[in-house]
């Protein structure tokens, strides 16, 4: 081997090793254990990275987070009565952070009955197995909520895709401008979804005798119901097409006169739950599962 080739090889290996060491050194993983009062609230504010919240046992909030830069830190605070615990990603200094520098990954476990509030810019939010209220908002990060029972679930997004699954006896309100909203087995006393251009997809039985209202401007609405669904359903679109492939009985006294192709109304079984689908220019389709 020629001497300059040997020197170059050693140089490259040294640079790679140094970079690896620096990268590892910049990744900081920490664990926090914070007491919280029964029924207290956990508030998380972060920009990018990810936030995942699970339901757990005990009376403490356990937060494991990883930062990737010395330019950010996680502030923690709690009210004296432990009724509210907050975790907030905080930039050190006035220098703007790059996307990677601003990332913080949170893994949080909260006690049963605790409420959770999460706000992010681009970080995806995943929440599962909670029994307390959930309030989530993100500009662009995907929002996923799974296995939540007897709770308020409020979601707001700008361009954030929203996915809700297995939410029982919930009070669900979703407002999303451009992000699509997907729901699978979501039921409760109120399920309200509104978008400007995001599509709305629902698959489930609309059970519980609740009020289900899906409204969009230009997004599409697709609802898939089992034959056993007990719904009083109306669908109306100002300029979009409306299609029904679900067996409905015509209502004796509809609140409006259905117009073929742009609206329909009817009931199935005993019509326990109210389902209202409205769009301005998006198409609406209801079909049998």
């Amino acid at each position, binding site marked *: 081997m020629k001497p300059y080739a040997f020197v170059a090889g050693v140089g490259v290996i040294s640079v790679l090793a140094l970079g690896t060491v620096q990268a590892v050194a910049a990744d900081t993983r920490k664990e926090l254990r914070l007491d919280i009062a029964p029924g207290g609230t956990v508030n998380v504010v972060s920009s990018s990275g990810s936030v995942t919240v699970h339901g757990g046992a005990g009376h403490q909030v356990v937060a494991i987070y990883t930062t990737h830069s010395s330019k950010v830190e996680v502030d923690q605070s709690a009210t004296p009565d432990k009724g509210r615990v907050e975790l907030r990603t905080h930039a050190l200094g006035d220098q703007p952070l790059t996307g990677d520098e601003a990332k913080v990954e949170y893994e949080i476990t909260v006690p049963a009955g605790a409420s959770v509030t999460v706000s992010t810019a681009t970080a995806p939010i995943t929440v599962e197995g909670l029994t307390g209220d959930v309030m989530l908002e993100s*500009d*662009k990060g995907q929002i996923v909520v799974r296995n939540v029972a007897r709770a308020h679930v409020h979601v707001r997004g700008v361009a954030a895709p929203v996915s809700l699954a297995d939410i029982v006896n919930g009070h669900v309100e979703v407002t999303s*401008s*451009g992000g699509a909203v997907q729901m699978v087995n979501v039921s409760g006393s109120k399920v309200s979804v509104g978008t400007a251009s995001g599509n709305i997809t629902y698959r489930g039985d609309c059970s519980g005798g609740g009020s289900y209202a899906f409204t969009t401007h230009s997004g599409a609405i697709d609802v898939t119901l089992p034959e056993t669904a007990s719904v009083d359903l109306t669908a109306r679109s100002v300029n979009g097409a409306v299609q029904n492939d679900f067996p409905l009985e015509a209502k004796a006294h509809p609140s409006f006169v259905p117009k073929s192709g742009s609206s329909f109304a009817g009931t199935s079984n005993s019509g326990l739950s109210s389902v209202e689908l409205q769009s301005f220019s998006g198409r609406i389709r209801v079909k049998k599962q």
Partner: protein
Amino acid sequence: MNCQQFQEVLPYTIESGGSAEEEEHLRTCPACAALVEDLRYIATQAKLLLPMHDPSPRVWTGIEQALRHQGLTQEGRLSLMGQTAVLPAQIRSWTPVGWVMAGAALMAFSALLIMYRPQLPQASSSAQNMSAQPAPLPADDQQLLRGVSQRAPDVSGAYEDSLREVNVYINDAEQAVAKDPQDAAAREQLLEAYQQKEMLYQMATARSLP
């Protein structure tokens, strides 16, 4: 693709089927879908104007024999009918009148394709053409976006897009309410549109704070 771009390539779309982009536009734009449906119907009807084949001489002969057998015709008239079957002009499969009608139908259809400009609903039109030539945002929206751009530039594009969409939403809903103030659904749409804008302002303001 917006409505204007789609309609520029419409004759080719009708003739040879559309591209994936054109098909996508067709699925999402009720106005253009209705236009294409109308034109396809016209094309179908125009084909019916094409000249027809005259029946074979054997048909005339068969009818002649049947009528004679039942005693419903006289010999003289039958001979006339029989003569028509062997006239040189009738041996041709296309009649001149048919050719003229076909030509007229094709010319009318071509002229329709070239000249047709659908009267789209204003709201739909504004929404579909939004991407081609975005309208300037109101001053309040621009001020809001400046704040977001300074503090969170990576999400300012999402806010701008959403503000435009919501403004179109409000405009459409306001027109629907003005058209029929008793329309409960239109009023609900207007309320929903304002709630969308309220949400955007709340979130953008929070994102703009130091």
